[in-house]
């Protein structure tokens, strides 16, 4: 039999006992057995409909059962169940500042919000008073920017330093064909302002970094992470934890996406979920792995929904839950996320109390290193030892040198474009083919941009191959400098 501790005021219903034993295999069974024995207790704990009252938290030993298996949490004989009310309050209902009063035009514009009781004038004023920072004006940032602007979020900050590119248009619906070559910030801000001139839009034309992140984030109420790389993701997370601001997170890959809210009122953070970044290159970016163009729409709008709910203070926020979306199966799943008590940034014994070097932490080079100005076109790639540039590769071919050219991309990429004379061995199969090559042979390896082929080179070098070189810039550089008829993708 498990022991149930009875709060003082309820002991009048249990014959003055401060603890009562009750049997059952789960929390629900124990509570039902308890209240069957002491019927007057029942209405204190359960609503007439039989649900546990909203203010009652049930603890099994020291754990809230919401983070275990809720009602179905198994109970052992030695366990203690406690009933703990959730208590909060405040002197006044937060009144939005005077300047958030709605104009006549705004009342008309937001009328479909105003007639929802959960939003109403008060909610729309909260939206108007809200300051939201969107990190990234790309795939996720596009629907976020458009809808949050339309919804009437009063002040939206955008962080981006990228240029609109043809490959963006398949999904970044905030940019149009005519915007190719323009700054994403300008293109996005224009579209947003056209939708809703009442919204203040602040452009932060920088790469978010450890030096500027706290300064930029501090002026916003919440942050929406629409980035596509690990260093920035950890940076945004840590900055949000340090500043105590919610971080509405989303990520996408091919047909799958994830979303959750981190760093919200003591909930878990990104580091609780992923304490360490994956090895560099293991998780491909959209540029490397591809993404269904519609996917960022779905995930970005889940983030936008959470942002609006947090601002309004309504509903159940996506906190402590990682929402997984599978577009092919058209299924949503949910994973419980727990705060890691040992988390280096939000745990009890935190070791990270200021921002660190996130490129070093993630083991990737800093593309915004010293001397590189934001938004500058790709610099002439430097050719290091063990590398070859496309011009030299072409000369080698033209001379008729005896060498092996290996393409480690995937077959579907090979179909889009290939370099003549190359042999296709996808990276995943590459280690099995090492034995087919002469360790003394002159070997050149390429992929799309040089990341995967660098890994293949490392595999061969480790196997004792002496003359292995990686094509700098991959087939993209080939298309740029040698053969423009080779399509870029």
């Amino acid at each position, binding site marked *: 039999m498990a022991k149930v501790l009875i709060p003082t005021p309820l002991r009048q219903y249990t014959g003055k006992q401060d603890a009562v034993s009750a049997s059952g295999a789960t929390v629900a069974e124990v509570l039902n057995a308890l209240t069957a024995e002491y019927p007057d207790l029942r*209405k204190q704990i359960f609503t007439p409909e039989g649900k546990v009252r909203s203010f009652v938290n049930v603890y099994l030993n020291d754990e809230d059962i919401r983070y275990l298996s809720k009602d179905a949490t198994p109970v052992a004989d030695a366990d203690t169940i406690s009933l703990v009310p*959730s208590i*909060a*309050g*405040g*002197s006044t209902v937060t009144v939005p500042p005077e300047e958030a009063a709605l104009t006549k035009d705004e009342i008309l514009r937001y009328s479909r919000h105003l007639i929802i009781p959960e939003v109403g004038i008060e909610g729309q004023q909260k939206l108007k008073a809200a300051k939201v920072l969107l990190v990234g004006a790309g795939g996720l940032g596009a629907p976020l920017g458009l809808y949050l602007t339309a919804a009437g979020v009063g002040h939206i900050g955008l962080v981006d330093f990228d240029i609109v590119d043809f490959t963006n248009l398949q999904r970044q619906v905030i940019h149009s064909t005519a915007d190719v070559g323009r700054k994403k910030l300008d293109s996005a801000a224009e579209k947003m302002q056209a939708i809703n001139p009442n919204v203040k839009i602040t452009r932060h034309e920088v790469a978010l970094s450890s030096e500027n992140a706290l300064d930029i984030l501090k002026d916003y109420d919440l942050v929406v992470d629409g980035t596509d790389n690990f260093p920035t993701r950890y940076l945004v997370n840590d900055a949000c934890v340090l500043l105590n601001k919610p971080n509405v997170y989303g990520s996408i890959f091919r047909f799958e996406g994830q979303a959750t809210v981190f760093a919200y009122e003591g909930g878990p953070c990104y580091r609780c979920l992923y304490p360490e970044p994956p090895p560099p290159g293991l998780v491909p970016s959209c540029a490397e792995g591809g993404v269904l163009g519609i996917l960022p729409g779905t995930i970005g709008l889940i983030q936008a929904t959470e942002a609006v709910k947090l601002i309004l203070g309504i509903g159940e926020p996506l906190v402590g839950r990682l929402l997984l979306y599978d577009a092919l199966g058209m299924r949503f799943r949910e994973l419980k996320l727990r705060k890691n008590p040992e988390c280096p940034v939000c745990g009890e014994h935190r070791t990270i109390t200021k921002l660190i070097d996130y490129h070093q932490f993630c083991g990737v080079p800093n593309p915004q290193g010293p001397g590189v100005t934001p938004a500058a076109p790709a610099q002439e790639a430097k050719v290091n030892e063990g590398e070859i540039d496309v011009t030299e590769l072409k000369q080698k071919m033209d001379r008729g040198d005896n060498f092996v050219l290996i393409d480690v991309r995937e077959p579907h990429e090979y179909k889009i474009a290939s370099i003549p004379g190359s042999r296709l061995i996808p990276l995943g199969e590459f280690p099995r083919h090492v034995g087919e090559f002469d360790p003394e042979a002159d070997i050149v390896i390429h992929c799309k941009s040089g990341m995967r082929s660098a890994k293949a080179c490392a595999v061969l070098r480790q196997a004792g191959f002496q003359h292995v070189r990686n094509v700098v810039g991959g087939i993209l550089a080939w298309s740029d400098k040698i053969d423009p008829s080779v399509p870029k993708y």
Partner: protein
Amino acid sequence: MIRIEPEPWAAMVSHARETYPNECCGAMLGSIDGEQKFVRVAMPLENAFAGAQATRYELRPEDLLAADKAARARQMDLIGIYHSHPDCDAYFSATDLRNSCPWYSFVVLSIQKGEFHHANSWLPNMDQTEAAKEELSY
């Protein structure tokens, strides 16, 4: 009615003044004799509200659980919750009511310009739609 002994009362007032202009919160431990409640120990707890704390407070359930354990360890009972209203009267606000529970006395201390002004105790009903004023002495 609820009687707060001088020592816990002094602790509550100084907690509320120190926390000003933010709201403070804590637990009250003591004993109950029929309708009469006696607060013998005030246990300051952290205001866990994540936003602006000038107008809001939140108790962590874990902290309340610890307060209940502390009370049991001292042969006392957890009988109430206190919090402050900086520059605001000691009424039971809509926010207070909505996030309360019917099991405890809720003492609200009004702190005006950093100094204690007045206090009230409230007893919320089962559905958290109303709170009755409870006679308070200190």
